[in-house]
């Protein structure tokens, strides 16, 4: 019975998944060749802006899928964040006047990081740091490495980059020195990168025309369920110009949703249900095989 429910939700999932991972190849674009030569019109632009003739640039963006369904068949998905620079002053996609950073963040949650040390020959968790909130998923795509786009102070302000995202120990912890915090932060980033939950794609944003850009971001199967935000930052010559935020709803659907809410909201009945299924499966199996053997 439950098997059929799984099959149905699997079929639903295929319809609901915005862009299956198979289309990843399409999204991989060659990093644009950056030309150091600035065209005359571009060089003239700031002067024009100063006279008030040209309005400042803006940025607008959206995501290919407003909602992603987590069903029994969910094995990760790919979303495309696209947008446009308003009042773009670059001549073509290759001009490289603007830098765009696309930051996709999963739901923030507290996290415990533990460190093992050798106690009497055994590797045991001996130290820990509780972080009060940090993004469960953090994907950065940019037109070029973020260190080249802006100064560290600017990146700190907007929490762009693994070293710049806010990651503070929860209150009430003693003995968390600067060095220890640094080590633990590095460990969080390293472990999250290993799980594909912290991802960095240095040339992941590509301009398609003088104002249109896109980035494809893959959300792995282990991404924690919850709202996902896509922040788009527009930079020009190292300074921040504009940002825009879009949202993706990541939620359980069908069988997964039913099971998960059943387990969390009615845990006692879920437990009884699990036992009933197990008992039924055991009795049915023995009855079936007994009949088969005669």
């Amino acid at each position, binding site marked *: 019975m439950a098997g059929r429910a799984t099959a149905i939700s699997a079929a639903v999932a295929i319809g609901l998944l915005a862009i299956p991972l198979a289309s990843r190849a399409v999204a991989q674009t060659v990093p644009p060749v950056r030309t150091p030569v600035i065209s005359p019109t571009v060089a003239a632009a700031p002067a024009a802006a100063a006279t008030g003739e040209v309005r400042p640039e803006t940025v607008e963006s959206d995501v290919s899928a407003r909602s992603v369904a987590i069903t029994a068949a969910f094995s990760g998905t790919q979303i495309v964040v696209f947008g446009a620079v308003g009042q773009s002053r670059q001549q073509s996609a290759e001009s490289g006047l603007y830098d765009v950073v696309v930051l996709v963040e999963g739901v923030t949650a507290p996290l*415990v990081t533990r460190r*093992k*040390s050798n106690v009497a020959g055994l*590797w045991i968790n001996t130290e820990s740091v509780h972080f009060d909130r940090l993004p469960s998923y953090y994907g950065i795509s940019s037109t070029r490495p973020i260190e080249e786009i802006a100064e560290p102070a600017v990146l700190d302000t907007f929490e762009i980059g693994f070293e710049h995202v806010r990651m503070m120990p929860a209150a009430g912890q003693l003995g968390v020195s600067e060095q220890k915090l640094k080590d633990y932060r590095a*460990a969080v980033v390293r472990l999250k990168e290993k799980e594909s939950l912290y991802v960095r794609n240095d040339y992941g944003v590509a301009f398609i025309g003088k104002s249109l850009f896109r980035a494809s971001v893959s959300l792995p199967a282990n991404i924690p369920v919850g709202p996902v935000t896509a922040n788009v930052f527009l930079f020009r010559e190292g300074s921040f110009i504009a940002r825009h935020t879009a949202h993706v709803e990541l939620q*359980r659907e069908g069988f*997964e949703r039913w099971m998960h809410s059943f387990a969390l909201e009615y845990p006692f009945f879920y437990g009884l249900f699990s036992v009933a299924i197990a008992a039924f*499966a055991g009795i049915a199996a023995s009855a079936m095989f007994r009949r088969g053997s005669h």
Partner: protein
Amino acid sequence: MNIYLPIAEMSANIFLFLGMGGAVGFLSGLFGVGGGFLVTPLLIFSGVPSAVAVGTEAAQIVASSVSGAIAQYRRNNVDIKMGVVLLSGGIVGSIIGVQVVKILRQIGQFDLFVSLSYVTFLGIIGSLMLIEAVNTIKKARAGKAVSARRPGQHSWIHGLPFKMRFHRSKLYISAIPPLVIGAFVGFLSAIMGVGGGFIMVPAMIYLLRVPTNVVVGTSLFQIVFVTAATTILHATQNKTVDIVLAMLLMIGGVVGAQLGAVAGEKLKGEQLRALLAILVLLVCLRIGWSLVAHPADLYSLSGVVGGH
């Protein structure tokens, strides 16, 4: 083909877990053991969080032992009164065990505790079984008669108060030892994700001196109810029972068990026990190795348990 597990919150290969259930089911059919002590470590090795592995395995043990318990009951091989006493202790042990799991998860020592429990119990049981099986094989070769059970003796256990009469087992003993044994097995069931037959059966034979013909049936009877209670407790206290994962293991398990039972008829009892002992010791060594080997990364991440 992958399936997203709703409680473990991971995408997993269906055939991996069907195969795992099948392989362990085959072994349990072959050796006549529950197999929980193999499934739980295998689940942990394959990336399932250890608390989910333990909680889910409890549900699978219900499935794998219920049919055996019913068959034994039909043959009148269950001492219900003894079973209920063991079970009462077992549920208390399970309640304590589930709370211990909750606390250990909060302080980040659950994995260590599970590993240490496995190394200790598998090491002891595996060594004892191997010694016993090798001795039996040697004696059989020497042509001596093999006695399965030592003659009954009165020990300190028979001097305890609160005596009860267990008609089916033809025993008149204190209720305290079965309660304590039941509680201990219930506790292990909750923290290790096992049925506990490997402790219960020898304890009933050697400590309580229950006749061998009712030992297996009574042990299965109490395992079904204790693991059922453990499943409900894990589901309510720790929210770590993944029924989708449990069902994959059950499906593989029932098929494997039938094949194993057929294969088991072709091997001798003591050879089977020696093989099982070697298997138990291998699992013990593998878990022990993960405790002493330098970890690939000293750091680990976990969510905040009991937050929300």
